[in-house]
């Protein structure tokens, strides 16, 4: 220990850029021994990037990194782990076909000369499992555990490497209420043992419950710190968005028009036992909230014909509609800005022009030939209307930032004059400026009478943008909330399988 600062970890002025975007513009973070801090910020604020740098997944461009007051420098995950820093991934990385002990010591099996000391493996593993409150035989197959317990195994794995700092990136995004509570008990227990935790979450309620201190990022910079007694919802939101909430989500309620999309007992292949019925009207912005894995994306994909419905009925503006492919859905006037922008939303190596015009080519064709002037016009309009920041319309989409890529996706659909625009996590990985523009655009489109249906895991976004929200749980709609009924608590209640009795 160096001169009594008590700081376990300190980073200063960390910078990191990716093609076309400056993700971290010089951020700082401190962490004391046995302290639980939360790192919060909107999507694209730079939280995940910082965590990846801290855990050695990717290097920073510049900046200082101190552990125990010593300047350190490491190049990969292994070296970070040697210094006691472990990242618990959002997606779990356990090998489902191996037992718990083998997973915990994967790559570090005790033994000699290439032979594994089975006895030591299992006694050690059991010890670490107990630390995270898992009283399971270490021979259990990892794949047989529910996701909440797998997460605890991940933590046990980190502890077995003598981790002093645990970084947890959205650990509760797919956990039930009960699993979340268990996780919190474990985290609090570890804190009392002197282990430090950096906790990343969008759920401000959880942040308040768990944190000794909150650090807020905005747009790749430090936006502020909150001491334990300053942690409350309003303070956190104010720092995250940098202004009053009402100003950020600039919504007017439009009088809803006719029903654009009507789904009666539609069944997505992922949840064949759970029929879903919803309705979206012209000029309405309707949200779909729920935990990760609740079937929200699958529902949009069913509407869009990616995975055709197994039953029930769909209507678009009163006309029966059964899409077998996205092409059918596009013909019926539907559009989808998918969650996985790079894989589904765009053809990355192609230019802004080619991407923006892709759905319109068939409509604008001249006997099968491309209409080049029309194509350029569509791209120019998209760039102008969406304020896409690109050197030219001939720039490959791959070289633009996430926000600009999302704007291309929206631009290409607007050229089709859709009746219903579906957006799946519309602002994931997008900087705050682009985010605000996307919200403004959603508002403007609703004003023009387009029906909008969006899925979001970001509570503020749902509360701020939706006129009405459906909450999903395990494939089904667990409840519908009108504007005046919506709150973080009511949504979480429904999302975790509870009912609205309060």
């Amino acid at each position, binding site marked *: 220990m160096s001169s009594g600062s008590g700081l376990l970890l300190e980073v200063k002025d960390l910078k990191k850029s990716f093609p*076309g975007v400056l993700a971290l513009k010089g951020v700082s973070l401190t962490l004391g021994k046995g302290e639980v801090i939360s790192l919060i910020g909107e999507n694209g604020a730079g939280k995940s990037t910082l965590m990846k740098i801290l855990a050695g997944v990717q290097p920073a461009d510049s900046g200082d990194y101190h552990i125990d007051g010593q300047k350190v420098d490491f190049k990969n995950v292994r070296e970070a782990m040697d210094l006691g820093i472990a990242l618990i991934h959002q997606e779990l990385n356990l090998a489902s076909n191996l037992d718990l002990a083998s997973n915990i010591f994967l790559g570090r099996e005790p033994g000699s000369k290439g032979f594994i000391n089975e006895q030591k493996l299992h006694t050690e593993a059991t010890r670490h499992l107990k630390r995270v409150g898992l009283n399971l035989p270490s021979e259990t197959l990892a794949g047989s555990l529910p996701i909440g317990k797998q997460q605890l195994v991940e933590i046990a794995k980190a502890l077995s490497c003598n981790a002093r700092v645990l970084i947890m990136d959205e650990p509760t995004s797919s956990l039930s209420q009960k699993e979340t509570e268990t996780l919190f008990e474990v985290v609090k227990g570890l804190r009392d043992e002197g282990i430090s935790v950096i906790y990343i979450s969008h759920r401000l309620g959880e942040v308040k419950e768990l944190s000794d201190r909150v650090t807020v990022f905005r747009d790749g910079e430090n936006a502020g710190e909150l001491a334990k007694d300053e942690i409350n919802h309003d303070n956190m939101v104010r720092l995250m968005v940098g202004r009053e909430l009402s100003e950020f989500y600039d919504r007017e309620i439009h009088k809803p028009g006719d029903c654009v999309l009507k789904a009666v007992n539609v069944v997505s292949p992922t949840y064949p036992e759970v029929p879903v019925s919803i309705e979206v009207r012209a000029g309405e912005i309707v949200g779909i909230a729920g935990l990760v894995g609740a079937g929200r994306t699958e529902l949009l994909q069913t509407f869009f014909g990616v995975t055709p419905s197994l039953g029930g009925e769909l209507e678009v503006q009163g006309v029966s509609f059964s899409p077998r492919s996205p*092409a059918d859905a596009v013909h019926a006037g539907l559009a989808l800005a998918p969650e996985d922008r790079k*894989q589904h939303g765009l053809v990355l*190596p192609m230019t802004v022009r080619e991407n923006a015009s*892709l759905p319109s080519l068939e409509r604008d064709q001249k006997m*099968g*030939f*491309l209409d080049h002037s029309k194509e350029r016009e569509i791209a120019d309009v998209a760039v102008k209307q969406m304020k896409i920041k690109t050197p030219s319309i001939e720039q490959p989409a791959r070289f633009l930032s996430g926000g600009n890529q999302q704007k291309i996706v929206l631009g*290409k659909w607007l050229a089709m004059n859709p009746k219903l625009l579906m957006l799946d996590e519309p602002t994931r990985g997008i900087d705050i400026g682009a985010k605000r523009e996307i919200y403004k655009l959603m508002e403007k489109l609703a004003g023009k009478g387009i029906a909008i249906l969006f899925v979001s895991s970001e509570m503020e976004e749902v509360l701020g943008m939706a006129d009405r929200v459906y909450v999903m749980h395990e494939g089904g709609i667990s409840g519908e909330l009108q504007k005046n009924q919506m709150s973080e608590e009511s949504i979480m209640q429904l999302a975790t399988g509870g009912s609205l009795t309060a």
Partner: protein
Amino acid sequence: MVTVFVITAIADPNFLSAYNMQNTVKWSSLYGVMSIGVAFVIITGGIDLSIGSVVGLVAVVLSFFTKIQGLDPIVAIGLTLLMSVLIGLIHGLLITKAKLQPFVVTLCGLLIYRSLSRWLTDNQSLGPVPLEGDLGFENLEQILMLDYIFSGQIPIGDFFKLPTPALFLLVLALVGSIFLRKTVWGRYLYALGNNEDGARYSGIDTDRMKIVAYVLCSFFAGIAGILFAFELGSVQPAQTGEFYELFAIAAAVLGGCSLRGGEGSILGVIIAAAVIRIIFNSINMVGISTHLEFGILGVVILLGVIGDEMLKKKMAERQVAASEKLAAELSEKSKNNENLE
């Protein structure tokens, strides 16, 4: 290519002789037609291994129709082309609807069509054109006319005679280029090759477009089969077209197509097909052992592809730099605006 050309020309002046040039042009054209076909499939990210067998089968069936069945040769040509289209359609359907892998489907095609050729003819060689000693050929006049069309020579000036396959190549290349660059379907093929999901989520019927690519590929192989049949005069059911698919794929790759899909142009493919022929020709002329010819070809393709990758990396770096510069300018600008506010 220019280097190979010059070196060979110096080493053996015969290389530049009219006869040798005609030959090179002719063979480049025959292989070029096949290569254009496979380029469509490779641009979608697929592969067709059956091309050589389709060439063989078309040549055999055409000869079978005209020589053994005595069918009107124009009808016979129409039927064989129809057959090649059907083959492509079956490939496309198996790949899109039955969701089989292109490699497997066309590998089976390779085996099936080759053995069909041998079975149909009892493995006896035959040709569409009467050779010396052939008796009882029907529709002789028509056949000789077709022979001129498909494997004749048009004198240009006093020394050079242009082989007619070159004209076929020219027309097909032009049509292919226009299709890829100027039509909606051409754009769809590139989009689909770069990112099939992305194309599908944009409302493109990707299955239909893949089928189109396989149909075009087999159709071009069919045309090549007819050209080869007339050129060779005698078709060996067991050998004609064997390994041609590898030449075609090599030409497509050397010509800038990526087997990952989404890249490539007809012009590049044709130049590559010509380079490959010239390399073979040069090896013969300069007197390098012909045992080495495949090895040299392999090295040339490797070098070409490595050079291509390096060039692409350079260009990508340049574009990243442009994006970063813009991002920096924009953030500078927005800072200034904030200051003004």
